[in-house]
């Protein structure tokens, strides 16, 4: 058997995963916890209380220099220009000239800089892309290796993070952040997440990672805080209809068909992919990424075809058990009359047809998150 484990990167939290009995798997070049107690339990912990994810595999890139803000705004489709208030966080696709998605990321407005958080699986590609297009007055800094990231998520997250970082953390609105401390010890406290619950993401210096993990777990002990694996991260995000790069979006899909038109600011200054997206909007999208709620208990897996009255109308891009919904859920690119909430379709699962109802996103609407589609303040 190939020994691939030695080539995998370990995050600074690795000793805590081992101690907690995590099942570790290779994920985007990292050895990551897929589960601890089991996905069902972990999912419910985040919906009802508070859980902690190691998301250190995510990639951090800082843009610095006189042209940093203008350049960030040229890279992504959403508005991240000089009008952003300090500490604002913006979710945005970053597109190719033809409108396909290079990656989806978070952009943080910190002073004259922009701080980008990208998907682990795309880090090398993204870094090369951003370097390649950067003007001379922008420095593109790889902060990936020196940054560990913890996501503290759930309706009790504010109590936990507030007890460590105080009122400034408690006062953050969803999709706002600030930098706690200065220099090499600085931590970014960010009220963001990928679960549909209220929550925070903490970007901490790798050298301080274990100390922060221990403080978070001590602060959360009375709320039943637990470590949560990437398995539950997927079931939580899927119930919310949040896109996963590589499944629901990639270089062959554009943000308009992915239901991300709210992140495409065609009226802002020029950006990479603008022309193609303008044209796509004029012509109208042919397929749309929508939710599915399946009948029965079988799961619709990526690649399964979707039919309506025996005709193929689309393909499943992500699917899992909707643990809080109580039914399997999926996301699928759908065409024609099937591409609307309420349409009845069949998911073709290895020969069987599973009836399903098309749903808007999110499919789960009872989360503690303040806005499922965080927007720039107008």
């Amino acid at each position: 058997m190939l020994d691939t484990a030695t080539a995998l990167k370990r995050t600074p939290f690795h000793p805590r995963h081992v101690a907690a009995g995590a099942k570790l798997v290779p994920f985007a070049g990292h050895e990551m916890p897929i589960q601890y107690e089991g996905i069902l339990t972990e999912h419910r912990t985040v919906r009802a209380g508070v859980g902690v994810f190691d998301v250190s595999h995510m990639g951090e890139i800082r843009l610095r220099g006189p042209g940093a803000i203008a350049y960030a705004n040229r890279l992504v489709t959403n508005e991240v220009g000089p009008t952003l208030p300090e500490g604002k966080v913006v979710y945005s696709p970053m597109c190719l000239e033809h409108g396909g998605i290079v990656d989806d990321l978070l952009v943080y407005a910190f002073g004259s800089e922009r701080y980008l958080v990208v998907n682990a699986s795309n880090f090398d590609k993204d870094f090369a892309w951003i370097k390649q297009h950067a003007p001379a007055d922008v420095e593109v800094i790889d902060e990936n290796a020196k940054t560990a990231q913890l996501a503290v998520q759930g309706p009790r997250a504010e109590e936990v993070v507030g007890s460590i970082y105080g009122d400034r953390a408690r006062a953050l609105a969803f999709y706002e952040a600030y930098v706690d401390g200065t220099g090499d010890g600085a931590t970014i406290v960010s009220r963001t997440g990928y679960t549909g619950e209220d929550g925070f993401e903490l970007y901490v210096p790798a050298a301080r990672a274990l100390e922060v993990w221990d403080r978070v777990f001590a602060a959360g002990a009375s709320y039943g805080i637990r470590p949560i694996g990437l398995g539950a991260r997927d079931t939580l995000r899927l119930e919310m209809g949040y896109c996963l790069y590589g499944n629901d979006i990639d270089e062959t899909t554009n943000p308009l068909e992915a239901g991300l038109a709210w992140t495409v600011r065609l009226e802002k200054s020029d950006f990479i992919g603008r022309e193609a997206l303008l044209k796509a909007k004029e012509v109208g999208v042919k397929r749309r990424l929508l939710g599915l709620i399946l009948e029965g208990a079988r799961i619709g897996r990526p690649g399964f075809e979707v039919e309506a009255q025996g005709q193929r109308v689309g393909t499943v891009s992500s699917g899992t058990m909707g643990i809080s919904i109580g039914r399997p859920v999926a996301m699928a690119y759908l065409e024609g009359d099937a591409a609307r909430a309420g349409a009845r379709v069949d998911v073709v699962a290895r020969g069987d047809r599973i009836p399903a109802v098309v749903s808007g996103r999110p499919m789960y609407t009872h989360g503690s998150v303040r806005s499922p589609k965080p927007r720039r303040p107008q």
Partner: protein
Amino acid sequence: MNVPKDLRYTKEHEWIRSAGGEVEVGITEYAQGELGDVIFVDLPPVGTKVVAMKTFGSIDAVKTVSDLFAPVAGEIMAVNDTLKENPALVNQSPYEKGWMVRIRVENPAEVGALLTSDDYEKLLGAHA
């Protein structure tokens, strides 16, 4: 890892309990751990003829779907219907309450050819 001595096994991590010309089939403790939380077990109706080493059903876990292979040829005599309501029994009690089907064996020699618990433990050792 619990590998009961009185059962037979397959490379696909199924166990086989033999009694009176019939075998009970389920998946091993190792298999349920690898799959994670099981949420649906798709089993054929009683009366179905199964062919050795061919799929006869599937298990949906949250993260993945896995085929079930018939360890021996024969006819399905019973199906564990409690798994419909409570598929987690496959995780909680893989060798007892999580059994899946009972097959009337066509050719008893096929049972004899299955892995012993020692064979299966060796196989697991190779996975570790």
